[in-house]
């Protein structure tokens, strides 16, 4: 990654504008050409630096509900349980963490009722007894961009 890659990453992480020629707009921001921006974005995608360039929607505003879930899963059962849980398309993030509650995942569903149905279903399917929804009471910050061009 060179400095131009980092500048492009910073710009497109911040926003790809909803205009007819968005990559031309980005090119102007970082003082290069539209073909150069497109070429580099394709390369950064191929190199698995960029996961996706696309729209992110606001779950709540679309009418969906989501929650963080904390669970305690015995080590020997972990692999099997994770496989079962990850099959749900509403499970979007799932991490093993070093704690008594060792499995932390996020669950999204089309209604509050569906969310609770899914949690009940998960408990039955996996036999996990300690599985607790932790919905956000208040959100102080949601941000996923990080500065790439940090003067390296």
């Amino acid at each position, binding site marked *: 990654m060179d400095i131009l890659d980092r500048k492009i*990453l910073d710009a497109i*992480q*911040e*926003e*790809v504008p*909803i*205009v*007819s*020629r968005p*990559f031309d707009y980005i090119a102007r921001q970082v003082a290069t050409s*539209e073909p150069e921006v*497109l070429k580099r*974005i394709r390369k950064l995608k191929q190199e*698995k*630096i*960029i*996961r996706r*360039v*696309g*729209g*992110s*929607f*606001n779950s709540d*505003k*679309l009418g969906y509900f*989501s929650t963080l879930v*904390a669970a305690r899963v015995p080590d020997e059962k972990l692999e099997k349980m*994770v496989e*079962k849980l*990850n*099959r749900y*398309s509403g499970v*979007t*993030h*799932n*991490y*093993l*963490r*070093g*704690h*008594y509650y060792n499995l*932390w995942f996020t669950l*999204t569903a*089309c*209604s509050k009722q569906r969310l609770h149905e*899914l949690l009940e279903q998960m408990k039955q*399917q996996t036999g996990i007894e300690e599985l*607790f929804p932790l*919905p*956000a*009471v*208040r*959100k*102080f*910050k*949601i*941000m996923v*961009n*990080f500065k*790439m061009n940090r003067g390296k």
Partner: protein
Amino acid sequence: MGFPQFTEQEKALIRLCQTDLPLCENPFEKIAQQLQVSEEWVIEKLRAWKQDGKLKKFRAILFHQKAGYQANGMSVWNVPEDKIEPIGVEIAGFDEVSHCYQRLQLPGFNFNLYAMIHGQSKQEVEDIVRNISKTIGVTDYQILYSLHEYKKTSMKYFVPEIESAEEKNSR
């Protein structure tokens, strides 16, 4: 369910926008062609959704591990109920914090404020958390490091397979 606020065409637009934006000069026109609508309709619709918050934005999402952020820690804080508001705002002000939410407490886990910390190393995450602790004057906290990422994806909205996959799963 039903989501009466969206037409079928609008749902189709949302489905397309949550996949990869075509990497060409005029990506929104490409999307419009797929839906057999005009580029203007697509752009106006998306701008309106951005205005009212349904669409956060179009942007690039990175594989963070590969972009120089090797460590992520979920810091959890036990903050007095009446101080959650100012302390939440204060934690949110740190650059290294990507998410900061108030959540209910769990049995045996009295933490009510969650902040995701991103750093180059475990050491850096610890330094950041210590700094936050000093700033907000709260010492009852823990850091839960991710030992393994089992899944990381974006939610796909208005995709009928979501429900059917789960039904299959339950049988």
